[in-house]
């Protein structure tokens, strides 16, 4: 495993060098969106400065080069998640949310109807809830939910009944609120035994640990560029090639067709069949650079760092505040991603975040696009710190210290 030099990594991220009130920013909101290293910014800038042209079909040199870079990014992401056929199994979307909508709007629309049911979990992000709720209104299938227990794990006691006859299991690999690392490989085996397909939401997983779609055993995997050192404006769907071939097209337009007549059209081959209109070209170039950067660090090292830092943070917070801080989600950092939601005294998460901001510490307060889970936890919002490759122990110390300030300000005395 690579050793991890966080100071050197931090130096690669321009925004982390900025000073606010004489202090460098402490960015603990990578679960919402990560920052980007120079290498990613340079790749995109260089692309626009030297090579930009619309992809596919162009005969001239920069158009060919743009096409090559774009398709190589697809290939690179395919390899990054261990796709058996990287050139044909990755669809670029605008974000992870569109990727789920794509699955719902094509596979789901074609395969789900009255009497059918799918299984989701109570800890899904809205991205993996709302598309199915919308489709179920139109198609009349039902949705069952795997409950979340008090310690932040999926409660699998009724899993057989839930999955019995299900057409799809949709599950997040890592909860963006609780941090829970779900046992997706096991769940996928159970789901497949029932003939259900498995959609894994990798938005909080793919950026943080080595990913193998074959080891996970999923049929669909979604993720998003901006949470993995890449740009906004690009998301990724991986699906088994055979599935993609069967699925009807999603959005209509240029690139996704082979032929168009006034009375009909023939779709293109996969994966282009699912990419209507000009794709996120510069964004794909940026994503490829982000993948190279992460591969340079080594995904096992990334994960080891995350476990170590999350463990350090859990200890530090509990040491400093004892019972006054409640950490949501499973015990043991290796059971979780680098996401730490907490309640601190009776302070409101937005007040906490506001005071932390004044101390240069960026955390997120809110429902984290997981309202059903908030209801389950019986809170309207949580405060959430999240870690990535550029975070270190000092960042955690800054968090602990800033929480003390919040306490001082709001405390009764």
């Amino acid at each position, binding site marked *: 495993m690579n050793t991890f030099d966080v100071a050197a990594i931090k130096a690669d991220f321009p925004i982390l060098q900025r000073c606010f009130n004489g202090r460098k920013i402490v960015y603990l909101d990578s679960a919402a969106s990560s920052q980007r290293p120079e290498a990613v910014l340079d790749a995109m800038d260089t692309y626009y400065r030297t090579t930009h042209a619309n992809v596919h079909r162009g005969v001239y040199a920069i158009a060919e080069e743009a096409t090559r870079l774009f398709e190589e990014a697809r290939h690179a992401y395919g390899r990054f998640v261990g796709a058996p056929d990287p050139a044909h199994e990755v669809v670029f979307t605008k974000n992870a949310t569109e990727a789920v909508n794509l699955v719902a709007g094509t596979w789901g629309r074609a395969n789900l109807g009255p009497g059918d049911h799918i299984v989701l979990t109570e800890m899904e992000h809205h991205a993996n809830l709302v598309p199915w709720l919308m489709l179920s209104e139109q198609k009349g299938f039902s949705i069952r939910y795997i409950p979340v227990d008090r310690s932040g794990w999926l409660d699998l006691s009724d899993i057989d009944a839930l999955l019995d006859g299900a057409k799809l299991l949709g599950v997040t690999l890592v909860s963006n609120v609780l941090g829970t690392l779900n046992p997706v490989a096991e769940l996928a085996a159970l789901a497949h035994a029932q003939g259900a397909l498995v959609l894994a939401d990798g938005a909080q997983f793919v950026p943080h640990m080595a990913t193998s779609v074959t080891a996970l055993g999923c049929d669909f995997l979604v993720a998003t560029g901006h949470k993995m050192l890449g740009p906004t404006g690009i998301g990724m769907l991986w699906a088994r090639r055979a599935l993609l071939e069967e699925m009807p097209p999603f959005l209509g337009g240029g690139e996704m067709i082979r032929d168009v007549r006034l009375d009909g059209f023939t779709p293109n081959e996969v994966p282009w069949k699912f990419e209507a209109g000009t794709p996120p070209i510069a964004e794909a170039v940026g994503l490829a650079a982000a993948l190279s950067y992460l591969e340079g660090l080594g995904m096992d090292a990334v994960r080891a760092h995350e476990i170590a830092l999350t463990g350090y943070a859990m200890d530090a917070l509990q040491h400093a505040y004892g019972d006054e801080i409640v950490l949501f989600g499973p015990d043991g950092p290796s059971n979780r991603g680098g996401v730490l939601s907490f309640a601190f005294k009776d302070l409101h998460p937005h*007040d906490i975040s*506001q005071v932390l901001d004044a101390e240069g510490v960026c955390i997120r307060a*809110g429902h984290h696009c997981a309202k059903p889970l908030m209801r389950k936890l019986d809170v309207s919002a949580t405060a959430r710190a999240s870690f990535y490759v550029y975070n270190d122990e000092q960042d955690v110390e800054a968090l602990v210290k800033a929480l003390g300030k919040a306490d001082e*300000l709001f405390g009764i005395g």
Partner: protein
Amino acid sequence: MAGLEDLYREIILDHYRNPRNRGELPVPPAHRTEGFNPLCGDEIVVYLSVTDGIVEDLRIGGQGCSISQSSASMMSAAVKGKTTAEARRTIATFKSMMSIHESTLDTSAGLASDPEIPEGVSSEDSGLDEDPSDELRPPSEAELTALGDLAALQGVVKFPVRIKCATLSWNTLAQGLDEIATSA
């Protein structure tokens, strides 16, 4: 750059720690109105008892951040015992204070700031769903003085995402008064 002390003035913290008129009123005869802040999911409940055009009593329920709680507390103190017409005037003044022009703000907070902020973009328009007909002129000195303690909430406009916190109870009160007026 706006500092925390602009937001969390002492008087605000005081209302947060010691909220006035917190609780419920029996419904009926009182009127109950809920307000919801979609940005954070917080909820405020305003109980109103209006007789002969006078806000005889009101109570605040629900939960939210310190800004929403203290704003509600100050509001309750400001309108209790007033006529509904006076209450509406106070609401209007308060809301005009909250929807001050972006150009008077320093939201750039030490960051690269776009010199070309379009005229007339109120901070509330940035991502929020305020009624665009809201009056946008900044309040006059006299109006600010009339607001009393409430003027302490002026600092909130420097923190655009928190404006909704401050206006939540006021919008709820306005809605309650409307409901009472139309049902009367």
